[in-house]
């Protein structure tokens, strides 16, 4: 397989409908009006030299090597900044332009290292390639004059360096930071000869506002900005297109390789979710795959207090099978279950739920979506008819008003956030509903029109109040409602929201959001030509999470903002394959494709395929599994790629449940926190080590391709298959494509999906005979359920109350450089940005408690306590504190409560009553847990043979 190098057309594509025909070097070319001569030439395979131009950025016209001649026009205009015109005759190779190009290139080379063989970009340098294309044969002026050749290299960033000596100040990096990433961290400092690329105001890259997305590195034509892995290893020799294993954006990358060694991950220009952009995690934080903490051999132990003992795959799988059989024989078939992973592929999650249903004979299967977006599934299914977001990411380009609710895209979904920021800079308006002043509220060139800093736990009140304004001020899209929605449900809902108790003036009293702000936000959203809702876990992780999702759906239907581009209700999924793990039937009440287990016709499909009779009753959800473990009716679990001890709420409750079980099997890359309570450890494989698919937040099914052999010899799907075989089932898949074939055969929304099709490009489900190329926008000609269903969303205050002992409200979230429980990102250089969880606290609350910035503080709730450092900031409102859950040393979830969403049991992470006080050291729990972890991770030495 060769190194994939996408064609660079030099300037962006024009979207104009009008076509223009011109002649370039005697060849007739027809392109859309507004296309540059450079791009038109490239469309005709005529490659004009260029340095400052690249097709991901607007034309700049500074490097002067792309000059051309146009018949009837004076001079030698830059082909990148000159648009085509009808009948234009262009010459790109005349002696005049050749001479100018050589002269310009020669001048560049007077101030550039001439180290062709030893240069880290040797063999893969756009700059060197252009010198070759232009035909420079000498540098007449030498390099003895004043130059930048000995400038200090900035190596502060852990992943890339900046060598000013190689910089030609073409501004591609600065423009990439502006146009692609929209962060504005880079600039050109100084004038004339003194001009140079600078990160911030004379800072190093690491300490500047740079977010290490890599856009500048990718844009650099000279290798001035270059990945350190390339400097260390040399240039890659082949590449494989695959899909990132971090957030729900699902970016496509080229894994650029030397043999089976990853040299770098470069965002793929043709990736439909990311269009060639990336963030610090996907672009750089893949080193965990080779981290020394990886466990590469299966391990077992009799008791969780014993040290681990390395064993063969056969012995480990045999133990899993015999223990699960023994438990079922003793305690019944419903006494064991599985937890599938949103970090694993669709095929792997499908097999794990199949293991529960076909092999165990029960529906005790759940997934980590339980603790994040399960309310999305319930809420959107109830209102629209299907459990998924309505749009593709590209839809944001048509949005005129965005309402971001309980999400922090610049940290959680950074590549999509760049698209949002771009659209906002083009003039779209923004409403943010969040207790914290997230970055989007105000950042360079982006400012929200309205920020509703609501009190945690009052989402439903505020969203219903927005509906009150829309209904009582006559802002409903009556035609849409009449044509597309259930009339009776709408009438009931409209009467409910119009009640005075739902008015902004009343809701202001509980939410803390001024009534006028609520009214203004409602008017802005309802008045938009295209209003789009984007939301995250700040909506779902509440005792009324499902109600809040339905409240959002109500708003979209009432204003007609559904069923076309630029609108919709869009859950920003947390993990890479949350959508896929839900689609694959991971929930205990649903078979793949969100079909209820009680539906005999659906069960018959799988009974025919699998040759067993399926249980028609729903199984246990994760919190129920823990409760059932404590009462003795649930005794064994196979957990693939999840760390429920660190990620799930009320840690003490979780650990007590796991400790009560007889056989806990953890299948993971590392000895995670849950493995402290495991009896069998099965080593997992990273996304680099297996084939499969991930499905992102826009329902896009993307291929994941193996670029190296599984380091522990088996891919995760093979491990699950071995368990099934050891328990007596003849599973004989030889490739994940066969699993997808089974999924397509049994799931109508996936009927048209094959690996062959996906190899031609990703598709968004539903993909079937009705929509053979997939479905970018849902509900275009009618809701999946028929008519849109308005649901009454009565506000029910949480029972997690503040009081004298716990007067503050804790809400939790994540940060850009870390991912979920941090198992991967903590084992990369990303720790340079975030090496511990910190507690954000408002200056007033800090002063009242005698807490200074950086102090160690005790964070206590009714569930437990931990200690961490305080960061004093007015990003949080008085009365609210915030932290992340990335680090096991903090164990933020020892503090969170057992309260959960009424419909789905999704935990109420976002509202915990706490107290904060100065502390001298770790809490008792932290001390005990640290000791337990040290004991639990002992691995017996293997006796010498």
């Amino acid at each position, binding site marked *: 397989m060769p190194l994939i190098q996408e064609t660079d057309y030099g300037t962006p594509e024009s979207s104009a409908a009008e076509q223009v025909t011109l002649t370039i070097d005697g060849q007739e070319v027809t392109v859309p009006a507004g296309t540059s001569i450079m791009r038109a030439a490239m469309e005709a395979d005529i490659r004009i030299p260029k340095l400052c131009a690249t097709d991901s950025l607007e034309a700049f016209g500074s490097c002067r090597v792309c000059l051309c001649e146009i018949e009837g026009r004076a001079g030698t205009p830059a082909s990148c900044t000159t648009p085509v015109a009808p009948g234009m005759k262009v010459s790109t190779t005349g002696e005049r332009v050749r001479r100018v190009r050589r002269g310009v290139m020669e001048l560049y080379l007077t101030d550039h290292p001439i180290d062709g063989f030893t240069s880290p970009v040797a063999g893969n340098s756009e700059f060197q390639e252009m010198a070759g294309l232009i035909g420079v044969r000498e540098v007449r002026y030498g390099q003895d004059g004043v130059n930048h050749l000995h400038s200090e290299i900035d190596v502060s960033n852990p992943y890339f360096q900046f060598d000013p000596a190689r910089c030609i100040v073409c501004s591609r990096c600065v423009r990439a930071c502006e146009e692609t990433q929209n962060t504005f961290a880079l600039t050109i400092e100084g004038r004339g000869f003194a001009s140079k690329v600078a990160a911030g105001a004379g800072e190093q890259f690491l300490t500047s506002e740079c977010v290490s997305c890599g856009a500048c590195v990718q844009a650099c034509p000279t290798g001035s900005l270059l990945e350190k892995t390339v400097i260390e290893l040399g240039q890659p020799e082949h590449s494989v297109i695959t899909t990132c294993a971090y957030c729900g954006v699902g970016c496509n990358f080229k894994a650029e390789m030397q043999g089976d060694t990853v040299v770098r991950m470069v965002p793929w220009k043709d990736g439909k979710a990311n269009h060639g952009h990336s963030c610090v995690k996907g672009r750089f934080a893949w080193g965990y795959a080779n981290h020394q903490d990886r466990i590469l051999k299966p391990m077992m132990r009799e008791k969780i207090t014993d040290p681990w003992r390395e064993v063969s795959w056969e012995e480990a799988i045999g133990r899993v099978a015999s223990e699960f059989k023994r438990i079922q024989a003793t305690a019944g078939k419903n006494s064991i279950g599985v937890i599938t992973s949103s970090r694993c592929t669709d095929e792997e999650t499908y097999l794990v739920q199949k293991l529960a249903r076909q092999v165990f004979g029960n529906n005790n299967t759940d997934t980590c979506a339980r603790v994040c977006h399960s309310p999305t599934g319930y809420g959107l299914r109830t209102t629209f008819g299907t459990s998924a977001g309505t749009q593709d990411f590209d839809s944001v380009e048509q949005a005129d008003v965005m309402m971001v609710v309980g999400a922090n895209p610049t940290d959680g979904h950074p590549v999509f956030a760049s698209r949002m920021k771009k659209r906002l800079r083009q003039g779209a308006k923004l409403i943010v509903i969040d207790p914290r002043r997230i970055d989007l509220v105000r950042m360079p060139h982006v400012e929200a029109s309205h920020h509703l800093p609501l009190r945690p736990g009052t989402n439903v009140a505020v969203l219903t109040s927005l509906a009150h304004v829309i209904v009582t001020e006559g802002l409903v899209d009556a035609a849409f409602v009449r044509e597309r929605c259930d009339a009776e449900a709408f009438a009931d809902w409209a009467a409910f929201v119009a009640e005075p108790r739902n008015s902004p003036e009343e809701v202001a009293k509980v939410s803390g959001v001024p009534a006028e702000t609520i009214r203004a936000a409602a008017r802005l959203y309802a008045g938009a030509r295209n209003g789009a809702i984007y939301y995250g876990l700040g909506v779902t992780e509440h005792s009324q999470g499902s109600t809040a999702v339905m409240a959002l759906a109500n708003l979209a239907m009432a204003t007609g903002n559904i069923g076309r581009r630029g609108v919709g209700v869009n859950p920003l999924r947390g993990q890479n394959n949350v959508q896929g793990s839900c689609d694959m039937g991971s929930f205990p009440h649903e078979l793949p494709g969100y079909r209820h287990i009680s539906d005999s016709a659906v069960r018959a499909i799988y009974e025919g395929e699998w040759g067993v009779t399926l249980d028609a009753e729903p199984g246990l*959800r994760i919190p129920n599994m823990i409760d059932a473990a404590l009462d003795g009716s649930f005794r064994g679990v196979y957990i693939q790629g999840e760390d429920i001890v660190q990620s799930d709420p009320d840690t003490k409750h979780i650990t007590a449940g796991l400790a009560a079980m007889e056989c806990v099997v953890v299948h993971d890359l590392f000895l995670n926190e849950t493995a402290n309570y495991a009896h069998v450890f099965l080593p997992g494989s990273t996304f680099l080590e297996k084939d499969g698919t991930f499905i992102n937040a826009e329902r896009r099914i993307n291929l994941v391709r193996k670029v190296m052999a599984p380091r522990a010899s088996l891919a995760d799907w093979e491990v699950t298959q071995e368990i099934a075989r050891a328990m007596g089932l003849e599973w004989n898949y030889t490739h994940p494509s066969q699993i997808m074939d089974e999924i397509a055969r049994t799931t109508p929304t996936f009927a048209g999906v094959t690996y062959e099709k996906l190899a031609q490009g990703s598709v968004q489900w539903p993909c079937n005979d009705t929509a053979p190329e997939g479905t970018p926008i849902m509900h275009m000609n009618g809701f999946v359920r028929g008519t849109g269903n308005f649901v009454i969303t009565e506000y029910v205050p949480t029972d997690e109350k503040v009081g004298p002992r716990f007067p503050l409200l804790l809400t939790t979230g994540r940060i850009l450089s870390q991912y979920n429980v941090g198992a991967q990102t903590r084992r990369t250089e990303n720790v340079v940005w975030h090496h511990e969880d910190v507690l954000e606290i408002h200056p007033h609350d800090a002063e009242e408690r005698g807490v200074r910035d950086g102090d160690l503080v005790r964070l206590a709730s009714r569930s437990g306590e931990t200690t961490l450092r305080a960061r004093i900031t007015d990003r949080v409102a008085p009365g609210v504190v915030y932290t992340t859950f990335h680090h096991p040393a903090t164990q933020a979830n020892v503090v969170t409560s057992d309260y959960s969403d009424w419909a*789905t049991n999704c935990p109420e992470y976002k509202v915990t009553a706490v107290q904060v006080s100065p502390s001298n050291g770790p809490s008792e729990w932290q001390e005990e847990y640290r000791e337990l972890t040290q004991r639990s991770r002992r691995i017996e030495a293997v006796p010498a043979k």
Partner: protein
Amino acid sequence: MSPEKLAYMANQIGKFFAHQKHDQAVAAIADHLDKFWDPRMRSGILAHLDEVQLDPLVREAVTAIAARSSQ
């Protein structure tokens, strides 16, 4: 499973459907318990019906499930 916790969760469900007409609300609560609760959770409440604090609509729904189970 703790009957009190199950009762709390059932009452949460009941609050969501409470705005509906009486018979619809009872049916919706029962339907939710049927569709989303493992049978041992339902039986966990049924076994302690006299001890747990259930809102009236929820008690009716759970009683209906009990009646159906005994048939």
